[in-house]
């Protein structure tokens, strides 16, 4: 303990300010800096812009304005915890950390604090089991669904027989990248393909040895679980070794414009999964242009509208808004709290009519969340990069995953967690 510290503490005490607001608060744990900033920026912009749109066009959610508090995490778990603690005093409704590492940290904390968390297409896959993870939601799809979608696509291309095929998984050597391994191992046992694991360490700027290995072993397909700068480097390296791009499939986090554009025309044909539509050919984008961009209220530089990750951020915000509306309906009050928001998320129904009314017809799959299943149906589609036109194209419908393999894994993992942390299962009607 030093006088210096005391001075520092006194300084910060005088500086830390928290104001109580009557708005509906949606913290955005974003990252606009660091090795993952290129991917973090469009998502954060989309997330913020949709709330701005709701405020400007509809006067808020059920008449109550939404407020987004942004906190920079840099994709770093320590900063993520700081962000969580600094925002949780402002009555936040739902957290969306956009990081599997931060998700793992926050799962016990949000459960103890009674705040819901939505990890859309990332995070802990077994959180799909709502009886164990009462406050964590990962609809509409998760990593294990993604792994299964990729294998289903490969099955489809090979007429259902991929025995003796060689499939490599290039993954970010972290909780995020390791998530699909269990599922892929089970699937390889079921379908008889050979799985090779190729880890890439954070941040992934150096992948020469990994791609040398791929060049030597020539796997029939390469799957990728990458994020941030790792994506661009991997796609460039695949181009360099002349790997056929149509056999290179990324998860939905490895399939945005800024991943493929640096590799130029040769990235043509690269495939990636997605759980929502691509492009800006939806009425909602006209509203965003009118109420947000042209009004000068866009987040960030305002140049990301319509990109894959912008759309994803917007989709995440839209699901949060719809869940808040559902919660307002259930509890008969416009000024909902975190516990009521949780009920809203658990009762969320996204059907075609609702998406149509939002100007987002067909933007995402139809799904419904319930108490037991916090993960939705796990539908996913495949998109492919058209370098000539400079845009992603959907090349399949939203299709189901192999729940025969995934469900036992989810039960096993979530029950192990429940036992380890002595969690009482949530009662489901």
């Amino acid at each position, binding site marked *: *303990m*030093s*006088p*210096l*510290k*005391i001075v*520092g*503490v006194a*300084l*910060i005490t005088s*500086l*830390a*300010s928290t104001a109580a607001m009557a708005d509906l608060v949606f913290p955005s744990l*974003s990252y*606009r*800096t660091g090795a993952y*900033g290129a991917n973090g*920026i469009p998502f954060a912009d989309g997330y913020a812009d949709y709330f701005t749109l709701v405020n400007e066009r509809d006067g808020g959610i059920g008449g109550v304005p939404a407020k987004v508090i*942004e*906190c*920079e995490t*840099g994709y*770093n*778990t*320590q900063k993520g*915890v*700081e962000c969580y*603690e*600094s925002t*949780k*005093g402002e009555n936040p409704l739902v957290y969306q950390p956009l990081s*599997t*590492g931060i998700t*793992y*940290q926050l*799962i*016990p*904390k949000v*459960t*103890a*604090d009674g705040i819901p968390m939505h990890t859309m297409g990332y995070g*802990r*896959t*077994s959180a799909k089991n709502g009886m164990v993870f009462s406050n964590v939601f990962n609809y509409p799809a998760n990593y294990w669904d993604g792994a299964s979608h990729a294998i289903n696509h490969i099955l489809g291309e090979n007429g259902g027989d991929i025995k003796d095929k060689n499939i490599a998984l290039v993954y970010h*050597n*972290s*909780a*995020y990248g*390791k*998530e699909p*391994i*269990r599922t892929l191992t089970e699937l390889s046992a079921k379908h008889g393909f050979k799985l090779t694991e190729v*880890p890439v*360490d*954070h941040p992934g700027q150096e992948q020469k040895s990994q791609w040398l290995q791929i060049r030597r072993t020539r796997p029939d397909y390469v799957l990728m679980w990458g994020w941030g700068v790792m994506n661009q480097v991997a796609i460039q390296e695949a181009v360099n070794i002349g790997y056929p791009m149509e056999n290179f499939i990324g998860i939905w986090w490895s399939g945005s414009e800024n991943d493929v554009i640096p590799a130029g025309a040769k990235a043509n044909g690269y495939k990636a999964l997605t759980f929502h539509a691509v492009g800006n050919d939806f009425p909602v984008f006209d509203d965003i242009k009118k109420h947000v961009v042209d009004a000068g209220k866009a987040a960030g530089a305002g140049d990301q509208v319509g990109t894959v990750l912008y759309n994803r951020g917007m989709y995440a915000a839209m699901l949060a808004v719809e869940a808040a509306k559902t919660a307002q309906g259930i509890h008969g009050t416009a000024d909902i709290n975190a516990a009521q928001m949780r009920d809203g998320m658990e009762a969320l129904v996204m059907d075609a009519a609702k998406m149509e009314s939002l100007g987002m017809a067909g933007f995402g799959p139809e799904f419904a969340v319930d108490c037991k299943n916090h993960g939705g149906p796990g539908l996913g589609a495949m998109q492919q990069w058209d370098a000539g036109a400079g845009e992603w194209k959907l090349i399949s419908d939203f299709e189901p995953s192999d729940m025969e393999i995934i469900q036992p894994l989810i039960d096993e*993992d979530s029950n192990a967690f429940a036992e*380890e*942390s*002595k969690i009482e299962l949530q009662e489901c009607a």
Partner: protein
Amino acid sequence: MFYRQAGDFKTTYRDDIQTFPLKQDRWGYYIVLAVAFLVVPFFINDYWTSAVMLPFLIYAIAALGLNILTGYCGQVSLGTGGFLAVGAYASYKIMTSFPDLNIFIVVLLSGVVTAAVGMLFGIPSLRIKGFYLAVATLAAQFFLVWLFNKVPWFYNNSASGQISVPERSMFGFAITGPNADAPVRYLFCLTFLVLLAWVARNLTRGRLGRSWMAIRDMDIAAEIIGVNPLKSKLSAFAVSSFFIGVAGALFFSVYLGAVEVGEAFGITQSFLVLFMIIIGGLGSIFGSFAGAAFLVLVPVLLKNIMVNWLGWPTDIAVHIEFMVVGGLIVLFLIAEPHGLAQLWRLAKDKFLLWPFPH
């Protein structure tokens, strides 16, 4: 005027060699301790604990540990992140293998495990010095992180490779896990810090500490006057790693609750702790505290000023924070190469003579 040596008579040798020979220093120390233990816990909340106090306390322990090795014994180490990881994974394995073991003992045992690993990686120090040793410890950093990533036994075969802390309590208060209260977590880490700082202070002014400093100042001369380099260097590695292991165990179990080795214990951690002791002051207990405080508190302070007060965009705030912290580090190193501890010492010396310096 008030802060002075005059009139403070010592009548025994024991009084003469105490840690704080000046009465005012001693009282200052007691007051800080009393405030830290008796006042702060009543005012602290979750934000203060998780964002400010726990990182400060834990990094101070790690900085103390590295200061023993680098500042007192002169062995440069870039393996701090790896040793923190050993502490964290040891505590996880011990906690899950022996669920009934007291968390206090778990943390101490993690320190012991890390001390053993540290000694193992300290063996090359008997043959190589300086930059070459830094490279050898760098190897420890990368090897240990790779090991914890590669071998599923260390993370109990969990699907994601993450380790998550189970709930453990002492005297009926939860220490780890999501239900632990802010003051309890703070006090738990503070107790470790005070105990370890006391141990470090007394080790470094005793026979062992003197042998470390002899090795640091000139190893050949030290050997000639009868200091055993094997014993001194390996004991420095052991004690240093023990401290860092305790810090790693607290970092994982009390502070973060879940970690993933590559991200939480990467090379940046090694550099961070090294910067702490360089800025704070090599070979100084106070310097370890000052360096940890500087590198933990300044970024949080800057962030609060720029984002909460001025309402700047978060990305610009982060970039400016990098520049300001980097600039301050350079400034401090130019203005006072011996660190904040030396500044503090000079200020005290000036103040002792004030207002009649001649």
